[in-house]
């Protein structure tokens, strides 16, 4: 009964937030954006009801974001003079905190894996939670900052490689945290955090070497409500596939007696890989279809065999085959684990390699 109270409270809070946004910014939105806002309120409410900790994560991110907005007082220059903004609550500082906390939690997870002391496991999980709060607050603040530069520059921060790498860290971590709680094991953290930290490493290099963190205005092709749906849906897919690959690594390690003592049972790992790939596959399918619909509107054709499209198709075929073999042929075991690891390579190429090595219509994130 008490749990219900929280749920109602959360839904009420989200609805209020949504209403606030609608009443204040309605004139800036088109109908699609209103629909997206309403479905986000519904979607996040659902997530919050299904997953208690998501509520706290959501509220924490928004509190930080609103605090930051309050501190900015409509002037981007404040980030240089106000201590809180400069060191914690400007988007760049928040992201920096995120990039510091992820490696830390990786270390603690590994320590936990071998020491088996619950305290370290909880500590690591806690660090990841703080990191994702910083990631999502950082993105929210960045969204706001883009409007501070100029109202016409303002846009949702999922428009270039820098921003989507943060989104990737955020989503992959949330997916992991969900299953950590659901399957009641923290022993996969050491593996999953590797792939997240790889993304963090790239993000750091990209920020320091290429000044990628500067907010750029949107090119005309990206100015569409579709971006708000297509990109996040895609990254739920990428995130789930990446986490699945790391679980598969753990799966393969259980062949070894030494590792078997430290890792969850094979069946759990197998089940988790399946569920991750399944959820990733659904979102990736939806994202690709939405991408096609957007392409039909922006580029004049739902499919142009652009390298990104083609590689998305290859990724899709790869996981379709994986699911086929598992669901229809009933295949289990090492082959599927290796396959899911190989899937990560293909996914990475689609996500990053295409931008690095091939040119095409999706060239928003060139290095």
């Amino acid at each position: 009964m008490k749990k219900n109270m929280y749920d109602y409270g959360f839904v009420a809070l989200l609805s209020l937030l949504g209403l606030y946004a609608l009443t204040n910014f309605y004139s800036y939105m088109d109908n699609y954006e209103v629909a997206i806002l309403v479905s986000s309120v519904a979607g996040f409410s659902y997530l919050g009801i299904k997953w208690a900790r998501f509520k706290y994560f959501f509220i924490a991110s928004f509190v930080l974001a609103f605090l930051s907005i309050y501190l900015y007082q409509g002037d981007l220059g404040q980030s240089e003079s106000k201590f809180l903004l400069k060191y914690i609550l400007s988007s760049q500082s928040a992201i920096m905190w995120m990039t510091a906390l992820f490696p830390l939690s990786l270390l603690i997870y590994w320590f936990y894996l071998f020491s088996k002391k619950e305290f370290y496991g909880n500590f690591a999980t806690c660090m990841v939670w703080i990191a994702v709060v910083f990631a999502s607050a950082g993105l929210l603040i960045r969204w706001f900052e883009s409007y501070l530069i100029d109202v016409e520059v303002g846009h949702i921060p999922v428009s270039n490689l820098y921003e989507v790498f943060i989104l990737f860290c955020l989503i992959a971590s949330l997916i992991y945290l969900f299953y950590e709680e659901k399957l009641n094991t923290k022993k996969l953290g050491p593996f999953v955090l590797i792939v997240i930290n790889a993304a963090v490493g790239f993000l750091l290099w990209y920020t320091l070497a290429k000044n990628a963190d500067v907010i750029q205005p949107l090119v005309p092709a990206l100015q569409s409500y579709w971006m708000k749906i297509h990109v996040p849906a895609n990254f739920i897919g990428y995130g789930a596939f990446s986490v699945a690959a790391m679980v598969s690594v753990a799966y393969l390690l259980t062949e070894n007696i030494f590792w078997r003592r430290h890792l969850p049972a094979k069946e759990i790992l197998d089940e988790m890989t399946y569920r991750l790939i399944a959820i990733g596959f659904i979102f990736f399918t939806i994202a690709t279809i939405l991408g096609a619909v957007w392409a039909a509107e922006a580029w004049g054709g739902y499919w142009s065999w652009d390298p990104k499209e083609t590689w998305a198709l290859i990724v899709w075929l790869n996981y379709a085959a994986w699911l086929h073999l598992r669901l229809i042929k009933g295949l289990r075991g090492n082959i599927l684990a290796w396959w899911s690891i190989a899937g990560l390579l293909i996914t990475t190429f689609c996500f990053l390699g295409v931008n690095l090595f091939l040119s095409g219509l999706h060239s928003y994130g060139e290095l």
Partner: protein
Amino acid sequence: MSSMRFAISMLSVVGLASIIGTVLQQNQPYESYIVNFGQFWFELFEMLSLYNVYQATWFLLILFFLVASTSLCVYRNTPQVVKDIQRFQENIREESLKRNKYALEIPFKDFKRLELIDFLKGMQFKIREKKINGQDDLIIAKKGDFQKLGYIFTHMAIIIISIGGLMDGNLVFKLKESMGIKQIEMQDKPISEISKKSWLEISNFSYRANMLLAEGESQDVAVIPVKDGYLIQDLPFSVSLNDFKIEHYASGQPRSFESDLVIKSKKNGEILTRKISVNKPLTFEGVTIYQSDFQDGGSRMNLDLINLHSIAGPLNMKAEVFKHNVMIVDNKKVNFEFEDFRLFNILDIGPEKNKKPKNVGPNFRFKIRDEAGQAREYETYQLPMMVEDRYFFMSGMRNSPQEDYKYLRIPADADRSLEGFTIFKSLIHDGKKIDKAANQLAKKNLIETKEVSQDLANSFKAIFENFVSGGYNNIAMSIDSNVPEEKQEQVASTYIKIIHLIADQLILDYQDNNPTSTPFNFDDVTVFSQDALNGYSDSFFYGSNFWVELRDFDHIQASGLQLTKSPGQFWVYLGSIMLVLGIFCMIYIQEARLWIVRKKGSKKITLAFASNREHLEFEKFVLDTKDKIKRFYSH
């Protein structure tokens, strides 16, 4: 053919071919492939249609086989799936129920058959009842039939999507081409001269064509690029462009591309006036019109040709982009072919690490073709650009499109104009002024006798005039041939110093004589004079005697439109929706079967469970259901 092995191997080929298509840039001009691969590989790749893999006959054939194979698969399996859905496994033996992995016995006081059935129905089970051995009760319950429908949905979806895709492909054209009814046009010619064989009629039901429309122009056909040629697509309407607009962000990057179009139907003369922009296309009579790109539409320019190497005054030229503009220079025909004019140019400018996008103003590109037909390409910016804290007029030159531009930098004067350089050029060609400057310079240096001083002045003058006739290159050549090697460096630096000093002196003298003149109002005019000397010297490698200066212009733009007729789109979207539903059914619907047996007179029931997917989730479901039934009986 309906085997999965066949399907998977076909899919692998599609995957591989797709990868080739992403690695090898598609639909480039064929010359660039020849340059990259050489003749042999070019021909081999062309034979395999690797330059347009996705339209290649073999690729379409594989897709076709995939569709056929999937259709066969659906055709064969659907009756079984339907049967499975209708069927309740009634003829199950007691033995196998007892051996069931999930078997459980639950005691009860009262069987409550009807309530139990209602209870199961409440749990979304479908129920069938039966008597076994003529006396015992058997309840067969099952749920999650949609999971099986998921298979059919996904496979049907793939067939529908593929058919939609094939509808929008160029199969019909390929067929007509192979029968000789249609033919790709390979040459660039006016539309009126293009053979009807290369025209596609209005009735063509699917195409993606391009139209380049200049402001004020009107067209009623579009161009479909095919391989290294093209086809003409007749349209059901004419399109005219009233205005093309690019809006910019404060930082200079483009914010929007918009075309004001007037569309007139050929059928009933209906007129539609509309603005389209990126992400906001317009559909008219089944054809969707997109803003895709833009370029120059024949801008008119008023230009001055400034001779870099002589004091002759500028030649005026009125030119148009895309037109050949012939000038007679020294009794020779020089052809200026203007290719582009851009009003805005956003370049990343600034010190390394802190480059910022900035609009550097208009530029224009042109080729200069001599009588022999040789052409060099030029790219000139109208406004001076800041380089190393000074302003320069920039013009790039290259001998072929494969090269990068090499830039000639002419310093802007204190008024940011070319005037200073023009004066400078006239000064360094003026023998008397050079005499005077050389004399002054000689006097400033060691003065022993008048005679020595005069000799010195003469040699200064000679060095300077040598420079004027060919730049630093001339100086280097004369040092090379006249000075022993060990002294060359020392002499060179002396010569350069002399040239600098004379140039400075020329400007100072000019300033003394024209105190009101402003071009040389610099804090330190020597910086300008050195830049001007460098620019003058480099201009001997510019490949042209003329600096082309833009005086004014009339900017005419052309909007690149894409016109699409895509009847397959509906089917592709329909298939996509089915695909998502199908996947959802397959993955998230738990298929389960439950048997409940009660022997006649017995005070307990036996449960047994089965599913086609017995993983952890199913085990949880079984435990859950058992609990619920236990509770049902414990009340």
